[in-house]
């Protein structure tokens, strides 16, 4: 469901930087399903990957060799994260993270505090680079108490920082609405014009079928905003489910309980 919900956020015709892990699968699903003209790019260099056959599984990593075959450009990290992302040409991004907070800041760095960490996570990879420059960041992670925090334990990736105006003050461009797709629901952000006005807070927009609003509220630790147009997400179609299972050849992406 999380994979499908994330994929549905990827728009046709958009240039997209796709991060490690579940995003590779979600973006591949979007590409095969409803967004054939999205530009599928990963940070190690392949830009505009079009699988040469529908039999191919989703890439397993951002430098998966399968990305070479069918890509329009085989560049490097300077091209992908530098020119494409930092240069302002990536319209959206799909990222995983360990934590997200009220204002959409992501954490891929550590759980706990810096001097007394519960766990040191791998670090930001390209997430901080992407968060600084991409307008529409689609993040994806299971809805769990340890992942949703009023303030992230460590902000590795700028969302709206402390709220309205936060990005401008930090020296960043304001950005468009973010999205966070989880295992129970989809959140948007209360910012019509990209971080200038609006509360810049996370807003519950869609519940998965069978999930109650209260269940989400019980996990999110702050007073969660709920969209006046809160709806139930359409369940995954047979086509989507078939595609996901096909793309996850080998079962590397779909870890039980975490999609």
């Amino acid at each position: 469901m999380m994979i499908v919900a994330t994929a549905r956020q990827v728009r046709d015709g958009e240039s997209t930087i796709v991060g490690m892990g579940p995003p590779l699968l979600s973006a591949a699903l979007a590409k095969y399903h409803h967004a054939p003209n999205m530009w599928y790019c990963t940070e190690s260099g392949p830009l505009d990957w079009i699988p040469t056959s529908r039999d191919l599984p989703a890439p397993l990593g951002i430098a998966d060799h399968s990305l070479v075959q069918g890509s329009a450009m085989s560049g490097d990290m300077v091209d992908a994260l530098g020119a494409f992302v930092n240069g302002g040409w990536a319209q959206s991004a799909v990222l995983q993270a360990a934590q997200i907070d009220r204002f959409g800041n992501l954490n891929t760095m550590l759980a706990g505090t810096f001097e007394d960490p519960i766990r040191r996570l791998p670090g930001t990879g390209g997430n901080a680079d992407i968060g600084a420059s991409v307008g529409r960041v689609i993040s994806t992670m299971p809805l769990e108490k340890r992942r949703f925090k009023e303030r992230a334990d460590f902000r590795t990736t700028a969302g709206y920082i402390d709220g309205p105006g936060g990005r401008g003050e930090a020296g960043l461009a304001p950005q468009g609405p973010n999205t966070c797709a989880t295992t129970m629901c989809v959140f948007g952000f209360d910012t019509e014009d990209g971080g200038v006005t609006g509360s810049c807070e996370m807003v519950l927009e869609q519940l998965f079928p069978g999930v109650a609003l209260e269940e989400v509220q019980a996990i999110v630790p702050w007073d969660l905003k709920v969209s006046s147009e809160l709806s139930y997400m359409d369940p995954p179609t047979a086509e989507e489910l078939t595609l996901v299972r096909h793309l996850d050849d080998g079962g590397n992406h779909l870890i039980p309980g975490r999609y």
Partner: protein
Amino acid sequence: MAEPINSWPSGRSKLMSAREAVNRFVNDGDTIYSGFNIISFALTDEIIRQGKQHLKAVAGSVTPNVTMMSIAGSVDRIETGYLSGTLRSKPFQEMMRDGRVKWNDYTNMTITLRLMAGGLGMPFICANSFLGTDYLLEETMNHSRSLKEDRRREDGSIAPPYAVIDSPFDGRKALLYPALKPDVAIVHCQRADEEGNVQVWGPRADTKWGLWSSRNVLVTAEEIVPRSVISTEPHFTVVPGFKVSAVIHDPWGAHPGGLLGHYRADRAWGELTGASMTDWNSARKYLDDWVYGTEERAAYIAQYRERFGDEMLEALRVKDFMVPEQPAKYGWR
């Protein structure tokens, strides 16, 4: 640093004529990356024909096409490291003396790095090149024909064309150059597909960063090829399709310049056109005859064939190809 993405035509095809491309994407006053190594004379001619004005030409080295655009009244500002044709062209020397053409000087490398910085979303970039030279003198940076107005800040003051600061890391002097983000790039390339995936090989000079840094990229291509040609040699792509606004199929688009793998430079004709830029009358005559007098690259080439014979043109074609001794193996399963 995220800026609005240039909008592209619906669907992915960006194939159009030079006329349409210049009409849609080149505006008076634009900063234009005009090429260094592979020049699109096809687009140069079209810019002159459409009477575009007040363009600023930038490139590591600017080439005879900029001399031509200046004399024709399209280019009146230049930022570059090298002005090809300066010495011989009296009109150009005259315009540089009387201020009709304004400029600031950089180098081949620093213009390339400034384009790279623009392409990478950086505000500036470091290079030692002008330390200890007269470029850093106040009277050079702000000479009477320099581009002061282009450097005016929001508060009215004038930003310098380069600035020395102390490095916050080791305290040593660092010379910074501001990023360049042209409005439009014009280049010729060996091949592209309809979607705008541009492939260039051979000495690339500043081409790649000229294209990445420019908001709109207009490319004339010697060959339009299917996507599968592009994606079976993806290492030749310098910019992907989403970065490109217009693809024009214009064979011989670099003539009288050369194009690796296709034709050698037409040195005799290059000499002649260069010589015609040496004074106003011969320059106007050349422009009337070969630019205003032709409607598009195909007409220019037809006129060339008509006047000099097919043999003259065909003699330029490359006949001798280098063959990979052991082609790189691409394969993953």
